């Protein structure tokens, strides 16, 4: 099965959907590995919200494309190079600091992005954005609180959080290399970038953490379907059953 995406708006929606589903899958890995039961349940909740969001976004993209493919086909039958999520969200759960740092950087991005999209001329996108903003605010509260705790907790937690941030920051650059599709789809891309940097700096500042400068990364862009090595492993696990039994219905 060769999945195609013809329409430019559909492609913009697919990018959002891919980012949601890949982050959801990463967070699902934390299930039964939480530091307490309460935190296990919290991470599962955020993961569930993201799977739900992805599902709705794929449905919108599918409708734009004339329902040639189902959401499950988009998820389970595309290869690495056909996925358009930001690389940040495919990074592994190295430790809890990585989970939180990745989530914080994502949530600040998602909060402003979906705020802008809630006035999109595409009514389906606008409607969904208003709904998911509520979820994003919870997730943001969670990642913000934990950034405070880890940054200001102990010397070890501060060090681990700083290391995670320093590593993940190299995947931020591409978020703001807007292409023509972005400029058409996102109401105010430059504001997205400005809000992101100012919010990240504020939260890191209050948490005794720093946004260290990263040398401009020499990396191809997610918009062209380029990924880190982690992505192939994630997909091989996620897609195993539908790929191994293509005739089966699940």
């Amino acid at each position: 099965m060769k999945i195609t995406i013809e329409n430019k708006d559909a492609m913009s929606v697919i990018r959002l959907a891919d980012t949601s589903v890949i982050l959801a899958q990463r967070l699902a890995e934390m299930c039964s590995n939480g530091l307490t039961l309460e935190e296990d349940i919290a991470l599962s909740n955020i993961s569930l919200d993201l799977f739900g969001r992805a599902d709705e976004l794929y449905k919108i993209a599918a409708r734009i494309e004339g329902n040639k493919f189902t959401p499950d086909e988009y998820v389970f039958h595309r290869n690495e190079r056909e996925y358009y999520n930001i690389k940040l969200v495919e990074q592994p759960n190295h430790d809890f600091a990585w989970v939180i740092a990745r989530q914080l950087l994502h949530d600040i991005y998602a909060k402003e992005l979906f705020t802008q999209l809630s006035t999109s001329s595409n009514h389906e996108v606008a409607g969904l954005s208003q709904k998911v903003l509520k979820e994003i605010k919870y997730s943001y509260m969670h990642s913000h609180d934990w950034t405070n705790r880890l940054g200001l907790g102990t010397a070890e937690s501060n060090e681990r959080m700083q290391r995670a941030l320093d590593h993940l920051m190299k995947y931020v650059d591409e978020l703001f290399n807007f292409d023509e599709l972005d400029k058409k789809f996102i109401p105010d891309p430059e504001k997205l970038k400005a809000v992101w940097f100012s919010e990240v700096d504020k939260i890191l500042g209050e948490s005794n953490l720093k946004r260290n400068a990263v040398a401009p990364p020499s990396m191809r862009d997610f918009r062209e379907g380029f990924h880190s090595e982690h992505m192939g492993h994630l997909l091989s696990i996620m897609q195993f059953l539908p790929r191994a039994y293509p005739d089966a219905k699940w």
Partner: protein
Amino acid sequence: MDKFEQAFNELIEKELKIEPRDWMPEKYREHLIRQVSQHAHSEVIGMQPEGNWLLRAPSLRAKQVLLAKIQDEGGHGLYLYSVAETLGISRQEMIEQLHTGKAKYSSIFNYPTLNWADIGAVGWLVDGAAITNQVSLQKTSYGPYSRGMVRICKEESFHQRQGYEIMMQMAFGTPEQKEMAQDALNRFWFPALMMFGPHDKDSAHSSQAMKWKIKIESNDQLRQKFIDHTIKQIEYLGLTCPDPNCKWNEETGHYDHSPFNWDEFWNVVNGNGPCNQERLDHHKKAHNDNKWVREAAAAYALKTEAQVA
């Protein structure tokens, strides 16, 4: 018998609830701590065999349903740890007892989940067996446990339906899917039946627990109820019960079953099941790897409390 014991006995006699501040015999308290903590640990360890297929769940819907279900099990663990805490033991102590092997959890979770239909079989048979027991426990004499069970049962019956839905999908699917469904049933049938515990005549703790109305129905009664109910579901799926002696008995009005392999049961209980070591190691690892996070949270709480003060 002093007046406290008399009051306790009267409450049990009248089928009224014992509450945390009521006087209770030390043995009653010990029995409950053992049973409730074992129940809590079972919910939490039970997240692992299902989690084993979470990342491979084959559709967006299946993923969301399974993740929500596992999350519920974690929530049940929380309720139950809280119930045990009303009896004077902390969650931390219970986790230590789990890690040292002093506290047990349901042996069924020491079996591996080897194909996607196992996730169906776990919901259908394992949660199904658990509900049969838990519906009865809604009437248990200890108030907090009884009320916890009412909430838990509501969610468990959803879990069982979720499991059966997967079984239907598999049993009515491609020949390969049906084969997976039969394989799952074959492996989980006897372990699920042994979840009800030893036969009444061999059950060490049962008789006292029934006198205290902690337990309302016996192991064998509950097991028979479950078999009678489940055979019809196996037939509907077009699968074969792995016990050739499981036939309707006109005289007893119940289905018969072959003798169980209690040697296997005790061997698994005593630590030699397929995954005993893995389940405990997984729990210990998650707990120990995150020690630094709990320390950070505690340090942060102290600092911010100091600021407020």
